[in-house]
Each structure stands twice: as C-alpha cells, then as structure tokens.
C-alpha cells in the first residue's frame, strides 16, 4: 500500500505570498533573497523614492538622523489629519470658531486637531533638524547645491503652511498672530503702502500703492484680517501651498538620487 501522501501543513505565509492577489500586487517573492529585496524597491512606487542600494555610511542613523525621511512622514500624517479636519470645518467668520469647538466635543476620539497642530510644530522642528544635519555634514556642496536651494524653499513653505494654518481656528491667538505677521507686509518696500518708496509710486496726487492695493491687501483680501483673509488663508493652507510643496518635494527627492545619492566623502 503506498504511503498516504503527507498532507502539507498549511503555511499561512506561503499561502499569502503565492496567492494570485499577492502576486498581482507585488510581482516578486517575499524578500528573502537579494534579488527579491532589490525588486521590492524597484517595483514599488513608494519605496522607489530610494535607489536599490545606498552607501553604508549613508544608511546609518548616526549620519542622517533620519530627519529628512521623518519630515516627509510628518507631512503625510499632516495631510491625513488635515483632510479629516476639513470634513468638519467651514472657513467663514460665522462658523469657523464654532466648528473648532464642535470638533473637540462632537467627534469621537477628538484629538484630530491636536494631532494636526502638534504635528505642524513637529514638522518645523524636523525640517530645521534636517537642514542642520545637511549643513554639518557639508552635504550641500557641489553637485548638490541646487537641491539645497530647493530645500530652503521647502523650509519656507513649511513655515508658511504653519503660519496660514494658525489663522483657521479664528480665536484671539490666531487673529492677532496673523495681524502682527501680515502687518509686516504693509512695510514692504514699494509694494506695501507703508513701505519705503511706496509714496514715490503715484500719478499726480493719486497714490498707486494704498491700503486697498498693496501686497497685504492681496494676501488678506481686505484691509484687515477679516472674512476675506480667513478664506484666502484656508485656500492657501489646504490647496495652494501643499500643492507647491508636493511638487518641490518630488524634485527634492528625485534630485537626491540624480546628484549622487545620500552624500558621502569623496
């Protein structure tokens, strides 16, 4: 009598990795061989931000502090928490403040606003830290100089994102921080109505740059921080600046690879 065929033990891992669904998603085996490990980077659009291999010195936490990668992760968490907040928030003088109060009390696990606010603070710190690391290792030097410039712009965008978001709760803290901050724009040379040189731009007695036509007005959509400013800051915060940041981030990551990967000594 032939020995009965031994029924193989059900291997859940194998069952999953050999299923059609898994294979259709990943197109390679689970990463146990170098080939699969390489494939898992190459065939994955998210991991593909990375090259397949990096310098050993550059893969050390002690070298990069992982500050750049962390900044990106923080940005992603802010996108997610921000989208959830947008479901409950209306950017009008009438509703904004009440929506923020309601957010805390009417929504289960009401810490979404906290996650967003503290995340924003954290992102500023991680971005500064990333810049500090890049500076201390001299990684901005040729051929990476332009990527440093893009990084500086991203730093500015990060702070602008945080600044525009600061107004949205529409409380005293928000309103006066933005009043003080945006009043500096009044003093922009030539473009602000209280800036040096603005008085020179006039036709006869009619000033071209006045409180209704200067940069501050363009920013606030009004002569003071009011309904127009709230709407404009909301759009800047949720659409305009994030879009610019995402575009520049793509360039930033792409150029890390094109400029020779994470820096190392010559």
């Amino acid at each position: 009598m032939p020995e009965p065929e031994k029924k193989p033990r059900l291997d859940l891992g194998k069952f999953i990795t050999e299923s059609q669904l898994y294979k259709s998603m990943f197109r390679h085996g689970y990463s146990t061989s170098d080939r699969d490990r390489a494939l898992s980077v190459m065939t994955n659009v998210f991991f593909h931000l990375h090259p397949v291999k990096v310098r050993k010195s550059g893969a050390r936490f002690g070298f990069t502090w992982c500050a750049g990668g962390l900044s990106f992760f923080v940005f992603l968490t802010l996108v997610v928490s921000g989208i959830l907040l947008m479901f409950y928030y209306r950017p009008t003088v009438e509703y904004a403040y009440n929506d923020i109060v309601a957010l805390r009390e009417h929504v289960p696990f009401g810490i979404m606003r906290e996650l967003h606010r503290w995340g924003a603070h954290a992102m500023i710190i991680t971005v500064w830290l990333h810049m500090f690391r890049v500076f201390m290792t001299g990684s901005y030097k040729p051929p990476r100089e332009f990527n440093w410039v893009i990084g500086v712009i991203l730093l500015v965008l990060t702070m602008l994102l945080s600044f525009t978001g600061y107004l949205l709760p529409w409380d005293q803290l928000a309103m006066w921080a933005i009043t003080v901050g945006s009043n500096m724009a009044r003093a922009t040379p030539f473009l602000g109505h209280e800036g040096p040189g603005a008085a020179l731009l006039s036709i006869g007695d009619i000033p071209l740059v006045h409180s209704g036509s200067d940069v501050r007005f363009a920013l606030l959509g009004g002569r003071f921080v009011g309904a127009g400013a709230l709407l404009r800051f909301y759009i800047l915060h949720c659409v305009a600046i994030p879009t610019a940041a995402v575009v520049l981030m793509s360039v930033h990551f792409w150029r890390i690879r094109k400029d020779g990967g994470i820096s190392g000594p010559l």
Partner: protein
Amino acid sequence: MAEESQMDRRSFLSWFGMAWLAFAAATTGALSIVLRALFPNVVFEPPTSFKAGLPADYEIGTVDERWKEKYGVWMIRTPEGIYALATICTHLGCTPNWLAAENKFKCPCHGSGFYKTGINFEGPAPRPLERYRIALAEDGQILVDKSRKFQQEKGEWNNPESFLNL
C-alpha cells in the same frame, strides 16, 4: 531649390526672437490677470464714516472709548475742540489700550507708547497715531470720516479738517 527655401540665419533669429517676444507677452498677460484676480472691486467691510453724537456728549479732557469697539476710533475732547484718533498702532497695527492712570496709549504687542495727542514717545512705533477727518454734520452731530486720515509727520495735523474747533 533647397537653398532658397531655407531660411537664412538672420531671418531665422528674428522669427525666433518674435516667437520669444510673443511668448513673454502672453505669459506677462496671463500673470497680470492672475495678479488682478487677487484684488476684488468690492470689499464688504464696515462703512468708513459714522456719526458720533453731539459735541456736548464728550467731557473735556477725557479720552472717549465708546467708538473703539465698533469703529476703531478714540474721540478726544480738549478745551479747544475734538479730534478722532485711529486705534491702530503705527508699528504693526495692534490696538493700543488707553491707560488713564498713566495718561498714555500703550500698545500690548511691542510696547509702543503714545501721548494723549497721539504723538509717539516710547517703544518701536516710528510715527504718531493717525487722525481721521472730523466735521460737524448739518444736524449738529459729529461726523467722523475714516477714509481720510492725517499724519502728524507730514504736517497734516495743521489741516482744519483734522481737528474740530468748538
């Protein structure tokens, strides 16, 4: 013939230049439209002029704060008359507080101080507070017009419209 149909170098460059010029013009045009879109023709902001009651409502020597909240104006009655001071700090636009005990306006944001006249004397404010146009309306009430302002450093406080003689 082939040679004739080919553009020579110079005319090619001039065509090229024209193309760039057209492109630049189109871009500038598009950008100026974007820029213009930032400035609405109508802004829904509170009216700029208001009636501030009868001169007799104001006590001589005091800084009257009744219009501060609604219109952002202090009315100051002196023995000679009345003037309307803007409640906007000339430093960064915060709203100063009137400290009656110390007889001065003090801005909470960066500590600028102003005398009762509006002249700056301490802190970072670079110039005095602004005064608004003030006049008597036909019904005897005081009319304050915020769309016209007078700045001391330009010598505009000598303008009769900046001060209501009583």
